[in-house]
């Protein structure tokens, strides 16, 4: 059963990242839905650890890219260098050629560099000097963003934000988890000792299983109603795109799979909706991304069957 792998994985991950089962589950669902994850939070809450844990447990190649304002596209994607011996240009892959990439503080890089990564995320391939190089499979990007310090940053434009399937926040751990964290071993050391519990092949299995999950007509009706509500609500400047709708469905499928079901329920959609919609919608009043309460209100305004 594919979801057995997933459960083992979540169990192992929550031994390292304490008190964040839900966020881990969302991250895994994002991975299963073949989407990319955006984590928006202050530093030090375990964003890097989360990316590390996922890569480690699934045996994925891991690369961390610290985005700075002087980072160039070639620094991420790689460069072609002239090889004297063969008298030809040879492509040297950049850090983007890994199965799991942590793009740390993505909003500190220039738009040009940002878009280089984002295009790679979308196309799952890199084109340099007229040559196309496929990115590894699976390919998963976790980007982080610090919402607190906006000076000297280049906020991601809407079109780029749309490339991230889910946006989550880690937040501070609850006191009990924090106490365990403080009293326990160093997380890095713990992680070093943790063997992989599944393989990239297992992840591909999970992805395929999620795509096969049954989606009934009433559920499609419901998703359409939700999308329609975002488009018609005066609270937002613009609604969710069809790509967001597809993403919502894919994420709900993955969530249902993690729950051990062969079909998707409205509850799955409702759980994933805030994470799909938060970074894509903007309040009509001030252009900020909507708070969770506003999104919850929207969900509750849509009647179900």
């Amino acid at each position, binding site marked *: 059963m594919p979801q057995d792998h997933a459960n083992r994985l979540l169990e192992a991950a929550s031994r390292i990242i304490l008190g964040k089962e839900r966020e881990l589950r969302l991250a895994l669902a994002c991975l299963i839905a073949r989407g990319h994850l955006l984590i928006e939070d202050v530093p030090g809450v375990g964003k890097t650890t989360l990316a590390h844990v996922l890569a480690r447990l699934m045996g994925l190649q891991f690369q961390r890219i610290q985005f700075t304002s002087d980072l160039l596209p070639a620094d991420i994607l790689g460069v072609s260098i002239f090889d004297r011996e063969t008298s030809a240009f040879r492509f040297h892959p950049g850090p983007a050629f890994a199965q799991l990439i942590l793009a740390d503080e993505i909003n500190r890089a220039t738009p040009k560099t940002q878009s280089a990564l984002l295009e790679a995320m979308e196309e799952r391939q890199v084109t340099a000097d007229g040559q196309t190089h496929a990115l590894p499979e699976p390919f998963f990007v976790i980007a982080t963003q610090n919402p607190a310090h906006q000076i000297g940053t280049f906020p991601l434009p809407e079109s780029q934000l749309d490339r991230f399937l889910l946006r989550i926040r880690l937040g501070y751990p609850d006191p009990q988890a924090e106490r365990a964290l403080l009293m326990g071993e160093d997380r890095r050391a713990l992680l070093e000792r943790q063997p992989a519990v599944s393989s990239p092949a297992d992840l591909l299995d999970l992805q395929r299983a999620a795509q096969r999950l*049954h989606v*009934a007509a*009433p*559920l499609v009706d419901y998703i359409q109603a939700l999308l329609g509500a975002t488009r018609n609500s005066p609270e937002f400047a613009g609604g969710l795109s069809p790509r967001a709708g597809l993403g919502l469905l894919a994420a709900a499928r993955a969530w249902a799979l993690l729950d051990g079901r*062969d*079909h*998707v*329920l*409205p*509850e799955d959609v*409702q759980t994933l909706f805030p994470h799909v919609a938060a970074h894509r919608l903007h309040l009509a009043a001030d252009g900020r991304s909507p708070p969770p309460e506003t999104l919850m209100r929207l*969900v*509750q*305004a*849509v*009647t*179900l*069957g």
Partner: protein
Amino acid sequence: MIGRHLLATMRAGRRHDSASVPSLQRGQGTWLLASAAAAVAPHGAWLPPWVAALGLALLAWRGILLWRGSRPPPALLLLALALAGAVGVRAEFGHFFGKDPGLAVLVLLLGLKLLETRAARDIRAGVLLCLFLQLALFLEDQSLPTAALALAGTLLALAALVALADPGGDGREHLRTAATLLAQGIPFMLVLFVLFPRVQGPLWGLPADAFSARSGLSDTMSPGSISELGLSSEIAMRAAFEGAPPPPAERYWRGPVLTRFDGREWHAVPAAEADAPYYTPTGPRLDYLLTIEPHNRRWLPALEHPGPTQPALRHTSDLRTLALRPLQARSRFALSAYPATPVGVDETAAVLAAATRLPARSNPRSVRLAQELAAGARDHGEVLARVIAHLRSLRLIYTLRPPLLGAHPADEFLFDTRRGFCEHFASTFAVLMRAAGVPTRIVTGYQGGEMNPVDRHLVIRQSDAHAWAEVWLQGRGWVRVDPTALAAPQRIESGIAWALTDNAELPLMLRADMAWLRSLRHRWEAASNAWNQHVLGYTPERQRELLARLGLGSGALAARVAALATAALVLFGGLYAWSVRRPPQRDPVQRLWLSFCARMAAAGAAREPWQGPLDYAAHLARCHPAHTQALREICQTYARLHYGPHPPDEDVRALKKQIARLKIK
């Protein structure tokens, strides 16, 4: 160029048409065959037996092909069958014109058409033929059962059409859709019925035998002629009284009067006719409405003695009532009766002489007996009393199966067999009285009638046919004497079923001990009567009256067309509004779920409109902790059925059971 393109498109379209319905599917075929059988079978009652049998056999053949999934028979064979059928019909009827040969051909064609059914077009043609045959039922018979049959047949034909449009659907769904369509058609039918100009007279081609005399009565009477009628429960007429009906012993419905006696048979003699009765009605008056079944004669068996009537009726000197024309359709008359009126006080000498005539040398023993009885009597009244007393003393037996009588029926009845039906009693009494010199004649008609408690109509059947006698007494005129009452007073008081000692002689429906059957029959006859009065009796005159009452004036064509169009538009608008405002049809799972939610809401745990089934299960568990398990199961089953891959029917039933088992009030 364009033409060639068009042709190619048409060919492609035709190919597509036949390709999309390669052959009749089983579901469609079943409906179509059921519809065809329902259309053909009732015609079997009047078609030549071989035509009906062949038509049904063709349908059965089609059914076998359908179930085996075999190919249709070759066209040449069908052609040969069609020709053979046509030759057969020609031989049967001698021509192809008119209704009966036409129907016979149609019945055969329907079977053949279905045998060659390949494309959707053929199915539509078959359904059309079925519908036409349903319509043709009314050319033969317009009774309530026929209407019910035609309605059922139309429903089946519609179901076949629905199945054609939705080949994948389920049979019950097809029938439901067809029933909805039919129900939507009914208002239009009613509007057309009320407003469409009625045709004067019977429909084209109503069967000729509708006009043949079926009445039990005739203008001759011989021993045994009325007792045959005693076995017929067919309805002769119905009477609806304004007040209380007269008591059973007073219900004499006067038909043919028989004066001439040839020693064995009694015959009617011609009598004068007038617009008014030959007497002055006096005494209490009874008003009633008489609906009489067609019998192709002018007799109107009215309750004795009718008062002056509408100008449409005639009265004879022998006190009968006649219609102007033979009654060829069910007719209704508003009549009145004056039971206490003395009649024929000033009877002419010729009539009285005719009423005392006896053929020479007939019934000698009776003549002798009468002369002995009359000897020394002061007047005719005393003779009457003596004859009655004598007859009573004989203890004659009333029976439906009297022995056959020979040349001197009165003698044989009085002295030998002593068993007889009403005509024996009346005839023998009349012979005795005439032999004693008292003017006497036979009156036939109906006696009694049964009150239908359902619609308060008095129903008079052929089995109520009766014969009695009339004696002319000086100063009193014609006085009714019913000799049957001497032997079997119950016959007069309660009806034939109570008078016969052995019930087994009577048909099932007439027996006295079958109370439940009688009550069923009452209901059925009341329904038939309502149908006759309101549907078949909706004549052009009544339509005119109704239109006038509706304010449509004289019912001019333009006004009617306008009324029809308005009514149709209003109906269309109403149906359209209904279809738009009706909530969308929900599947059974969703219906169950919504009723469950409503029940839970009544129990204080309403579902938020946005809440999914699992969330709701958690909410319910908090409200009813004792039932957590059952509630969770219901919600999970629903979630699986509604959002999961194609649910099997058993699971729907399981959900129903789970909900039914739940004990939360």
